[in-house]
């Protein structure tokens, strides 16, 4: 399990390839990469990500532990950048290695929903019209809350692992 909070860029392809290379129990790898968006309706010159040094990595690691309690994960990677980022650059990457695909997909979404609304990062956009702090959106909060109602159990997944040859 790896958590990295860094200012420098990362190579999502290389990170994905490195995850669980020799692991033959894994049938499934789900991954998410978030990038700095710049669209014509909202052009962005750059984005600056502030974070809470000291708290950030520990807080993310706690949440990775929670994901491991919920699903039988074989490996897990979280990278989140801070500092100044340009449009098209990677901000965040989550990758999860598991026996089956539903576990991998759900754990990756769970971790992303957490990072969006509970990890101590704040984004500021620099635009032609000036700079502004990105506001939290209701949808991200709702996305996070759907996990509350979900029992933290992997029994369901286990019950069909014997029949599942891959993914």
């Amino acid at each position, binding site marked *: 399990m790896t958590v990295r909070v860094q200012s420098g860029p990362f190579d999502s392809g290389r990170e994905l390839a490195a995850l669980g290379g020799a692991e033959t129990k894994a049938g499934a790898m789900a991954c998410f990469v*978030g990038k700095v968006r710049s669209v014509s309706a909202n052009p962005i010159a750059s984005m600056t*990500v*502030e*974070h*809470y040094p*000291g*708290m950030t990595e*520990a*807080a993310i690691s706690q949440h990775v532990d929670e994901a491991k309690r919920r699903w039988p994960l074989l490996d897990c990677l979280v990278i*989140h950048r801070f500092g100044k980022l340009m449009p098209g650059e990677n*901000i*965040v990457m989550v990758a999860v290695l598991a026996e089956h695909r539903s576990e991998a997909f759900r754990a990756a979404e769970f971790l*992303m929903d957490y*990072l*969006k*609304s*509970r*990890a*101590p*990062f*704040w*984004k*500021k956009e620099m635009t032609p019209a000036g700079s502004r*702090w*990105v*506001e*939290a959106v209701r949808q*991200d909060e709702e996305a996070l809350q759907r996990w509350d109602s979900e029992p933290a159990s992997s029994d369901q997944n286990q019950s069909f692992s014997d029949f599942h040859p891959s993914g």
Partner: protein
Amino acid sequence: MVEVLYFAWVRERIGIPREQVETEAGTVGEFIEELKGRGGRYEMALSDLSSVRFAVDQQLAESATEIRDAREIAVFPPMTGG
């Protein structure tokens, strides 16, 4: 003495990233009321408590969270990571 950290627009509005504060407050909520009581930039930055979040000793906290033994309190807007 507790170390107080401000992030994002809370930091910008208050004008400093951190400071040492002497407080008798028992909870985060009481502590924030103390800060607001200073008026000026503090009152402006903390006027809408629904848009402010807290951490006590680097754990997310609520208004009701106890701060008796806290070493570090952080005040910041809702997080926007990912």
